[in-house]
């Protein structure tokens, strides 16, 4: 497995957050490149597949769209299994959905740890940024600090509607997933050389930093 060429990766990614924050819209935008204001509420879980060419490698992303209503929790948690990364989404126009972010993160971390005992890479998405950014500005929240304190590897203001920052956020997450995968391989086989993490892909990633 020393040869990196034509290597395939399969990563399972969870998309979670309160109901109506735009989880389904983000996935549809990312996978199918379109947007509709008429997406129905997700009941249970949905699933979509996205294939990326990442340097010389193929990355297959399984995106699991998890229903936002709390009562589905004990049915949908089984789908957390074997996930390598997550997006936690909130709606910038609804402060309550941001307040729920820490709850989602704690729940995720309590249900899911990697083989090396670390938490999975998680990116925070401030969605519907085309409709204003009240939550971000009014409360004077320092997002970088919030992310560091709560263990997010990065955050993005996104709009599924206007296609803002969706690809960037996904690239950031994939980069961190790969890094943690290498991290785990390294701890198993101490001789393996660690690839450079900052081999940048897909433009700048200013708000994207390491979790350590």
């Amino acid at each position, binding site marked *: 497995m020393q040869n990196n060429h034509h290597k395939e990766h399969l990563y399972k990614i969870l998309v979670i957050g309160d109901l109506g924050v735009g989880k389904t819209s983000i996935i549809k935008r990312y996978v199918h490149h379109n947007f509709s204001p008429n997406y129905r*509420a*997700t009941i*249970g*879980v949905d*699933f979509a597949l996205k294939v990326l060419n990442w340097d010389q490698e193929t990355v297959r992303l399984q995106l699991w769209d998890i229903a936002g*209503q709390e*009562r589905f929790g004990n049915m949908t948690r089984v789908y957390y299994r074997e996930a390598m990364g997550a997006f936690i989404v909130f709606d910038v126009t609804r402060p309550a959905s941001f307040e729920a972010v820490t709850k989602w993160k704690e729940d995720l971390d309590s249900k899911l740890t990697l083989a090396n005992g670390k938490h999975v890479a998680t990116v925070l998405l401030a969605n519907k940024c085309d409709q204003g950014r009240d939550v971000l500005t009014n409360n004077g929240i320092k997002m970088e600090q919030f992310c560091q304190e709560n263990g997010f590897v990065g955050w993005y203001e996104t709009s599924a509607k206007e296609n803002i920052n969706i690809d960037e956020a996904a690239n950031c997450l994939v980069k961190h997933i790969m890094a943690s995968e290498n991290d785990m391989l390294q701890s198993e086989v101490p001789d393996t050389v660690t690839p450079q993490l900052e081999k940048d892909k897909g433009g700048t990633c200013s708000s994207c930093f390491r979790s350590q």
Partner: protein
Amino acid sequence: TTMKKSISVGASSPVNGRQDWDSKRRRKTAEISQALSVSPVDVAALRRMAISEGGLLTDEIRCQVWPRLLNVPPQVLDQEPVDRENNKDYNQVLLDVQRSLRRFPPGMPDEQREGLQEELIDIILRVLKRNPQLHYYQGYHDIVVTFLLVLGERLATALVEKLSTHHLRDFMDPTMDNTKHILNYLMPIIEKVNPEVHDFMQQAEVGTVFALSWLITWFGHVLSDFRHVVRLYDFFLACHPLMPIYFAAVIVLYREEEVLECECDMAMVHHLLSQIPQDLPYETLISRAGDLFVQFPPSELAKEAASHESMATSTFKDFELASTQQRPDSVLRRRRRQKQSALEGSAANSVVAVAQPSAARRFVRLAVMGLTVALGAAALAVVNTALEWAPKLDLFP
């Protein structure tokens, strides 16, 4: 008599088929009017009509028959106004109703649709307010919108309230534990009919969450053609509350080849199964679901369903109890008679009273298996359900 007619589905030319269907339709319409006009209304006949080929045919007929199937009086009182501001469910209901655009007819003017969406919110909040033991779930709005579009606000409120305290009761608990348990019936049904599909799904560890929205919305959430939705509602309103899970099993079984060709992987199988085909042969599948219900009634599956996941037996007892509320009137009458005779007679007499139903059930089952895909065979399921429950006299006060 309806049974005999619907069994004779002969091959005929498209033109003849058309004429055939037109005359069948006329006959059925007349039979429904007849059942509605007698006093007391012949609910058992209406149930058969709702199940058999074509269901209740038109929304006009549904307005008259659906209330009868749920034993809701046709005269409904005026509804009290709704206080939205002080309602704990309002925000969530609003978010879901705003996202229910696809449930309205495509050509409907925005203004009319928006008016209906307001009514939809009011119905939901009103029922929840009056029944604090009920908890809103995402998908409930998909059920309510179907009733609203067919019946209008006032009747819809009454029927939804009845349905929520009966058929949908388990989905409206504080947690989804009972719903999870009901989903556990799916795999045992599939196993009885096609062990290969069952084993494949088990191996893929696909679970049953793909069928969650089917069950708790009675397929309203996933079928895009409103005619198909109301046809299924005819069927489910006339049947045992577990019938939607039999119908879910029938859909999986119908797609047997696709399933077995799928990569045996949780994600792939979940994805395949949760994308419901829109061109399903509904009448055939309804009939099959009825057949399966007769051959493998819930009581026979209960043990296997429970073994899929541990759960309190009391939960299931409650569910059985809830189910007894939905028996056809004739059964309730028969049960009362049986109870009477059990009380009056000696111990030997009551043994006979209890033994009779199971003998009759075997007879019914043989008859159904001989019918294969006879449209309308599912009507027998109702009769059989009744027999199935009959020995449990103590459940009925």
